[in-house]
């Protein structure tokens, strides 16, 4: 057992400050355990989200010593000994109270994401895919929506005005999952370029660094999407190839409104 000083942000939209709570720490504890000690002792009104305590629900995201991390997955013995542990709410999102933020920006960006638009099933009504066709997207399914990648991304963390047209790393992995899906028929490249702000990303890889699921967000999603956008908009040889083969690309508006409903068309 040791004692540590927890510096925790207390406040709401009207303002706040760090308050210090000297607390006992037991062997093997994580930051969330110690926050619970604080709640059980000197600050029973301390607000913080948590749920699974196993790094799978993505609820307890916070900034521990200045870096976005899951409180339930950050062991106290990995933090500098003898120094206060600073815990602040995620900086990018509006605060509700103490460590709880309003992450509805992410839900709105998810709503704007054109959904899976499958082709028609095979003649016998079955969709067939091979493992090698879907393995790229499987990595992205590990996302627990902790939104720490969104939080650390300086495009919106330091520039609030970009929030209107920047989907962010968490949404980009979903875009890449759909764009590389063998059954999907939509073409979201112009939408990504014009309205979802793929060009804002400057590949500084902080999203990858903070991802608790170790998803290679930049290498496997953002850069491949950027290259697909280059195919669609910046590569004159690709443009010539499209002209010769008479292939078209969907405009941003077409992609945003594109829907398929093969089950209904089958029944008609």
């Amino acid at each position: 057992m040791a004692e540590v000083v927890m510096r925790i942000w207390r406040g709401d939209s009207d303002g706040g400050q760090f308050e210090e709570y000297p607390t006992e720490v037991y062997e093997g504890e994580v930051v969330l355990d110690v926050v619970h000690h604080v709640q059980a002792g000197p600050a029973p009104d301390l607000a913080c989200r948590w749920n699974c305590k196993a790094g799978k629900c993505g609820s307890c995201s916070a900034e521990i010593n200045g870096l976005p991390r899951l409180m339930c997955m950050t062991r106290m013995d990995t933090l500098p000994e003898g120094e206060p542990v600073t815990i602040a709410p995620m900086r990018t999102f509006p605060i509700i109270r103490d460590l709880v933020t309003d992450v509805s920006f992410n839900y709105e960006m998810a709503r704007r994401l054109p959904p899976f638009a499958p082709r028609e099933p095979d003649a016998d009504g079955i969709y067939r895919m091979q493992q090698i066709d879907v393995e790229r997207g499987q990595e992205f399914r590990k996302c627990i929506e902790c939104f720490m990648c969104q939080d650390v991304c300086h495009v919106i963390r330091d520039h609030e005005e970009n929030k209107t047209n920047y989907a962010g790393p968490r949404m980009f992995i979903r875009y890449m999952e759909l764009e590389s899906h063998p059954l999907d028929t939509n073409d979201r490249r112009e939408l990504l370029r014009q309205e979802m702000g793929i060009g804002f990303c400057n590949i500084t890889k902080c999203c990858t660094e903070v991802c608790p699921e170790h998803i290679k967000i930049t290498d496997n999603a953002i850069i491949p999407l950027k290259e697909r956008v280059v195919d669609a908009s910046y590569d004159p040889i690709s443009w010539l190839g499209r002209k010769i083969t008479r292939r078209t690309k969907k405009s941003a508006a077409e992609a945003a409104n594109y829907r398929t409903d093969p089950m209904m068309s089958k029944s008609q």
Partner: protein
Amino acid sequence: MSTQEGIRPAPVPLVLGGARGGPNVKTLRKDAWKRTPLFTAIYLAAFVIYATWAAFQNGNYYVGASAHRDLISPFYSPCIAASCSAGARGSFYLHWWTYSPAIVILIIPLGFRVTCYYYRKAYYRSFWLSPPACGVADSHAKYTGETRFPLILQNIHRYFFVLGLLLNIILTADAINAFRMPGDGGIGVSVGTLVLCVNAILLWAYSISCHACRHLCGGNVKQFSKHPIKYRFWKFVTPLNGRHMQLAWASLTFVALSDLYVRLVASGVFSDPKIF
């Protein structure tokens, strides 16, 4: 109206603003976050200074038959200027270019590395400070990323990649030529031979691990099962792509060391030792 349209809620206007939590400070980090961008800035600046100096030397870049060797600096190959020394120049050259040939040649590797996805991270963090480190505030009031000129030109990376491959072929030929020992028994291996061979291997590894290469050789397809050859290429390139940063640093370092080695031998500081 389809079922999907029926269950899909309409986008709502995004409400901006709202008070943020935490103090208004640049960062709450207390670890040594300045170390990596500082080291990167110093290393890249040192390379740029050395490469600029070497490119304008216009001399001591070739060790020829008089020293029983055939070694050319990677900064000066292919030597396509009128001023190139006889042994270094091929049959094609720009007769109107009388300045250092390195100035022409280095445009390709410079463009390839400047637009490289890894180096973008390195210099955006260390020189642009946008951001200098994760969880540290961006040093600019406005930010448009790579959506406008000039940074929108980063999208031509794939063209520099292709040009870089052509240059790699030439540098590989140089490495093979380095096995020649003119006037000294035909074929052999010297330290210079090994230096140019390692340089060529690292440049190939760096180029093939590039993200544009990974996209062009298979990443651009939607259904791998319909493109089995592209899938094989993609599977080969993907693990290398995971080492792109290390290969970027190794090849950058070694290309400068290769030039330095040839320069020292050509200027007579020491002779190139023959191994066998």
